[in-house]
């Protein structure tokens, strides 16, 4: 008895392999074997491997929608059809035969055929596996309802947006004051997470103190960068294109330096669990609330400084017209150094928070993965306008998080954000808050 069970288990593991390799197997009677130029196979499983659905009629239709063949799934939920002609077929489950409380999951639009069927392109000599998924009928009531999902995604989007805003403010300020698109800004974000990992996880410093010290260290890195690199390069009169390529070189070196010193795996900043809190349909970790709070405070402080203080006024003046600002007695170099310091500090803070609440750890490419979102946010809001960067970040955050529940599969949610950027450039190249001016 036991031996038989092990045998069945082994067989069920082997079956997919055998299907792929197309070699004969013990239970060939129920399986289709593709032969070159003769037979093609359409086979798959109803349900999951862990919970197969047996006794369901699976219907195969040809391209015109005529039923070709019907098979009933075996104990392991498997079905297979042998076809002698290549082409398009449709696979659909007979709802009548599905066990009560189950329904066929409507296939994704890319593979959807008529009447909820799954489109499949059969080829002779190979085996294709349509994805036929089932879910419980009370999926909507029992699981998360669509509106709840949306609510959760909106909150997640705001969270992501706030952290993006923290990082993109610096990117935007640097662009505004120096005209430089800093491709190494993402590595400043990663630096924040890395420093926090070293301080909090490795050295065991208190998390809150760690966040503050990390921000200070990152700000210092910005100060030193401007002092040792950017200011001398500005003095040399290096063009913006050249400077931009310098930032790319820096980004490359920094990414591999992180790998060199920390390794290529994801490192946790904190191992402690801080628990979660639920408000109605929305559940977030407590750390997330804290991160959003810190981000809002930091952004508010930057906003206040920019609008209400002399330093902020001077920064905006340099953004508008460096030469005029210098002529009015503003120390442009000092302002730019301050901007670099603040930008690196904000990016570092964003990096810690991002590692804490979104990526659940820090890795050498954490920053690189959000770099394009940052650029999209800054461009969307209007290059060089700090408040535009904030608005753009919130929009990008929402788009990324809402793309999933609204139907974008997997990594495509990032692609959607970048696609929106490209479309926006078509209609409003100066960005949402940018002033309409000639940008060509």
């Amino acid at each position, binding site marked *: 008895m036991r031996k038989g069970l092990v045998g069945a288990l082994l067989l069920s593991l082997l079956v997919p392999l055998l299907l792929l390799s197309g070699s004969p197997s013990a239970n060939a009677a129920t399986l289709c074997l593709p032969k070159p130029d003769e037979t093609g196979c359409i086979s798959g499983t109803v349900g999951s491997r862990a919970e197969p659905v047996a006794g369901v009629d699976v219907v195969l239709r040809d391209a015109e929608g005529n039923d070709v063949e019907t098979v009933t799934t075996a104990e392991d939920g498997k079905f297979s059809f042998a076809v002698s002609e290549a082409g398009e077929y449709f696979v659909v489950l007979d709802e009548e035969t599905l066990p009560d409380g189950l329904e066929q999951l409507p296939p*994704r639009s*890319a*593979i959807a055929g008529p009447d909820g069927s799954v489109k499949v*392109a059969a080829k002779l000599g190979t085996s*294709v596996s349509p994805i036929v998924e089932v879910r419980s009928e009370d999926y909507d009531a029992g699981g998360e309802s669509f509106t709840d999902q949306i609510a959760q995604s909106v909150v997640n989007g705001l969270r992501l947006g706030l952290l993006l805003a923290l990082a993109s403010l610096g990117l935007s300020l640097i662009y505004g004051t120096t005209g430089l*698109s800093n491709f190494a800004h993402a590595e400043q974000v990663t630096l924040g997470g890395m420093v926090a990992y070293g301080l909090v996880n490795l050295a065991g410093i208190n998390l809150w103190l760690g966040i503050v010290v990390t921000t200070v260290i990152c700000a210092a890195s910005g100060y030193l960068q401007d002092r040792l690199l950017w200011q001398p*390069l500005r003095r*040399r009169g*290096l*063009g*913006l*294109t*050249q400077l*931009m*390529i*310098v930032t*790319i*070189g*820096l*980004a*490359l*070196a*920094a*990414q*591999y*330096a992180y*790998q*060199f010193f920390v390794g*290529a795996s994801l490192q946790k900043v904190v191992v402690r669990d801080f628990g979660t809190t639920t408000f109605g349909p929305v559940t977030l970790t407590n750390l997330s609330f804290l991160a959003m709070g810190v981000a809002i405070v930091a952004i508010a402080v930057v906003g206040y400084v920019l609008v209400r203080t002399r330093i902020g006024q001077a920064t905006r003046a340099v953004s508008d017209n460096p030469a005029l600002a210098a002529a009015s007695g503003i120390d442009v170099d000092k302002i730019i150094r301050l901007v670099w310091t603040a930008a690196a500090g904000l990016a570092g803070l964003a990096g810690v928070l991002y590692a804490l609440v979104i990526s659940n750890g820090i890795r050498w490419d954490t920053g*690189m993965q959000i770099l*394009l979102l940052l*650029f*999209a946010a800054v*461009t969307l809001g209007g*290059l060089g306008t700090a408040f535009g960067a904030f608005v753009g970040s919130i929009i990008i955050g929402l788009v990324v998080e809402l793309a999933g529940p609204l139907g974008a*599969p*997997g*990594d*495509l949610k*990032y*692609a959607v954000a*970048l*696609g929106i*950027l*490209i479309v926006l*450039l*078509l209609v409003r*190249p100066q960005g949402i808050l940018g002033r309409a001016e000639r*940008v*060509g």
Partner: protein
Amino acid sequence: MDTILDILGAVIREAISPGTAAVAIAVIGLNLHFGYTGLLNFGQSGFMLLGAYGFAISLVHDIPLPLAVLIGLGLAFVFALVLGIPTLQLRGDYLAIVTISAAEIIRFVGRLANLKDLTGGAQGIQGRTYQPAFVDLSFFGDGSFTLVPFNYTDVADGAGWVRALGGLVFAACVVAVVVLVRRAKRADDPAAAPAERRRGLVHKLLVALIVVIGLYAVFFAMPVTYGRSGVNGWWVRAVAWTLVALSTLVVYLLVRSPWGRLLRGVREDEDAMRSLGRNVFAIKMQSLVIGGLFGALGGMVYVLASTVQPDALGRQITFFAYTALLLGGAATILGPVLGTVLFFSARILIRESARAYVPDSVMSTQQTEQFSFIIVGVALVLLVIFRPQGILGNKRELRFNV
């Protein structure tokens, strides 16, 4: 001594690998964009990936090879149009951000699990599913072949001094070329006397001869053996480097044509070109399309000896391409090829040397790889700051700003 020879052998194999040739073709396209037209295209990897996908997927679906190449090129053509229309009328950094984003979108889409049947998802397309169509074209025959057939083993029973002599000849050739090229450059100066300019032509022929002798010396001292045909043999290498040579020739003819002068005009001063009644947008678009086609061709060559893997043709490749271009010299004919070969050789040289001579306790095998990339990044920074014209470039040609 053996360690050094092993390292040099690895460097030479990397220098002539199909991957190096593929990137060289993409860099030639990038040179047209960045070097000659001043377009900041940061999506060359996207062009490469599209070319590779179009080519490989067509071959998997039993489409004939020439048509598959055309499909790959066609995809890149459409991609260039889609990128160019919204951005070419805007400031240069918009093009940079949009091209890098679009290249990432292509990579994300290629990785999608839903498209697994077509693109193979994140695993990509296995080489053996599409390579036979190309490998079968080989007329090189079977067995293996050593380049060059007459090498150090045929002289004095392959004594060490023979190899060393080959190395010395190579070193002497490099020195001679550097000296001659510098002199020829002075002679190219319009202010130079006509007699000197004629001598410049003699110099050029002499340089070409010395380069050939130098290359022979390298392979004489360090012969390389591969299968004649097969997936990763001389056939792929011969085709790849022939394409590099053809691409270089095409770009050479393009940029010395009147159209090439238009490109440089756009790079130097768009407004002046407009005032002369030229359609700057159209010129930029033509440059973007043609350079992108080279990118797609590079992508196809890239996957000939490996697999179509979306992450292998990501942002990094674009950045490597820029490093190679700036190393060789933007806006020069031979700069892209020289830069790419040097870039990949130098990286392997750094990595292998670190592996051989740095103890494992200081740097693990994994870390030597990363170490070599750190050096690449720092080298890019130093290059741009201290020698923006690269090895072959002319500093006056690089004053532009986009």
